């Protein structure tokens, strides 16, 4: 099972000091946080994509590449990649390139985005959100699996004889998760392709998460990708911990009360009861997190939101240290009683193995004078020399 962090990349004032970080500080902080995540032993770091203030995360693959260059092991992912307003051809190219640069340390999570004006800014219509997610991903899926694509759809200009380059590393496209809080169509989409399904989990009561994951699992089985309990499930989570539970509550309360998403609404006490947010000691966070399995079944990926609500970088890094301390117990707890046939989250390595080994799928251009492609010419040259 994978553990990691996800971020939306927001620039939020620290309510205890009134100070708002600069964009530069936030962008650099994301990199520091990712490096720390690797240091404490986490498996995944996921960055967001937004196209409006107060977010700095408009260019996820740039940030991911910079993080990848300074880390060795951690998998880079997204939370989320906007499949609605980003051209699927650009997604294929950007993440395809990133996959090569990182030697396969990349996967991505598709999301629709719920900021209304972003759609018209990119020439789209939010009322078509689901349709955009369905059609755009259908194209992306083909671009990574077919060397030459002819395409005509409703939402982008047609493609004739188009090859998305680079071709996937080792002939295996990056693994894809589909994220949604409450749209059954997205669970259906993930199930149809045998892709992963990620439930944000953190803003809503667990009953909603349970229902969506159940739907995804049933449909995954329906489409023949494996058993109900073999579907690939990811969950969000959030916590604030200190060695003493009371310290955690006192320190986190002003951040919660003023948080952009749920601030000025329910009390911290109510919200921690109603949603998976856990504030307390490391032991309490450990126990609550291990309880997620009770309603979604054994799952594959747990991501935590740690840099939000204006928490200063120093505090975020301390949170990661504490997470690192309970990580062995989290891993052991999640492994307990987990049936052997429940798979781990797919990685580049496991996907290559499943495909029967790595193969180069480079598409060489045709020489416009001889009509030959490079490897044919190479074969000829070898024959001549032999």
């Amino acid at each position, binding site marked *: 099972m994978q553990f990691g962090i996800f971020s939306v990349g927001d620039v939020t004032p620290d309510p205890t000091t009134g100070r708002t970080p600069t964009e530069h500080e936030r962008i650099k902080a994301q990199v520091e946080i990712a490096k720390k995540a690797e240091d404490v032993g986490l498996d995944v770091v996921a960055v967001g994509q937004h196209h409006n203030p107060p977010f700095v995360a408009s260019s996820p693959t740039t940030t991911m590449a910079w993080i990848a260059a300074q880390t060795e092991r951690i998998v880079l992912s997204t939370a989320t990649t906007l499949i609605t307003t980003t051209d699927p051809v650009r997604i294929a190219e950007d993440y395809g390139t990133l996959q090569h640069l990182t030697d396969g340390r990349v996967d991505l999570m598709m999301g629709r985005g719920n900021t209304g004006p972003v759609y018209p800014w990119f020439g789209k219509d939010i009322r078509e959100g*689901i*349709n*955009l997610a*369905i*059609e755009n991903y*259908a194209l992306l899926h083909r671009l990574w699996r077919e060397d030459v694509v002819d395409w005509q*759809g*409703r939402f982008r200009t047609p493609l004739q004889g188009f090859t998305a380059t680079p071709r996937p590393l080792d002939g295996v496209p990056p693994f894809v998760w589909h994220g949604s809080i409450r*749209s*059954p*169509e997205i*669970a*259906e*989409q993930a*199930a*149809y392709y045998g892709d992963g399904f990620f439930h944000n989990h953190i*803003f*809503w*009561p667990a*009953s*909603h998460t349970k*229902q*969506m994951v159940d*739907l995804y699992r049933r*449909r995954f089985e329906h*489409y023949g990708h494996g058993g109900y309990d073999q579907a690939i499930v990811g969950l969000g989570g959030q916590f604030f911990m200190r060695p003493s539970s009371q310290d955690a509550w006192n320190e986190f309360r002003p951040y919660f009360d003023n948080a952009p998403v*749920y*601030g*000025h*609404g*329910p009390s911290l006490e*109510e*919200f921690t009861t*109603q949603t998976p947010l856990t504030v307390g000691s490391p032991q309490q966070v450990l126990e609550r997190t291990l309880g997620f399995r009770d309603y979604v079944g054994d799952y594959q990926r747990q991501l935590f939101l740690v840099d939000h609500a204006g928490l200063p970088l120093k505090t975020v890094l301390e949170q990661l240290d504490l997470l690192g301390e309970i990580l062995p117990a989290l891993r052991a707890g999640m492994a307990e009683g987990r049936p052997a046939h429940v798979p781990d989250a797919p990685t580049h390595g496991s996907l290559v193995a499943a495909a029967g080994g790595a193969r180069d799928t480079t598409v060489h251009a045709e020489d416009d004078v001889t009509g030959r492609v490079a490897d044919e010419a190479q074969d000829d040259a070898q024959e001549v020399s032999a």
Partner: protein
Amino acid sequence: MTRRVVVVSAGLSVPSSTRLLADRLGAAVVERLGADTRLDVVELRPLAHALADALVTGFASGDLAEAQDLVRRADGLVVVTPVFAASYSGLFKTFFDVLEQGTLDGKPVLLGATAGTARHSLVLDHALRPLFSYLHAVAVPTGVFAATDDFGTDADLSGRIARAAGELADLVGGGPALHVVTDAEVAEAGAVPFEQLLARASGRE
């Protein structure tokens, strides 16, 4: 078969003339439907905090979730609001703002309102009726408006209550009980097979 009638009352003061009207309407509907009727009253005042929270978080919890469930399972509704600033109150509107879409589809509703004077009586037709049309509810033709004076002098208030209650009872009692859509069914209904989703996305459906 037991019919379920739910009264939603948005009065704020205690006692409240809105609740007074709501109770009279509820009782009149039960009288017309007979003994095999279950009547529940949802008072919005105690749900004020939960409603504000639901606006902020996007989900309903505790008593508010229970109230929403009562409304979802109701065969008929009586809704009564005080008039604030020439319309329904914000609290009243918020309750319907945070209801799951589709909850009121085809549901018979009796509209009621109260105000200090009769000068607001058209609020039923210029504010409540369009709201419930939008929500796809079936509002009965007679709405009941009660000004403060009506509780003392207007003998005809009882007549209007009886007439409106009769109209609601006819809709509730006449047909088969409404099918109550559960959360799981909502999720299932959204689970359109993927090939169909793809056809729809591409405009081929």
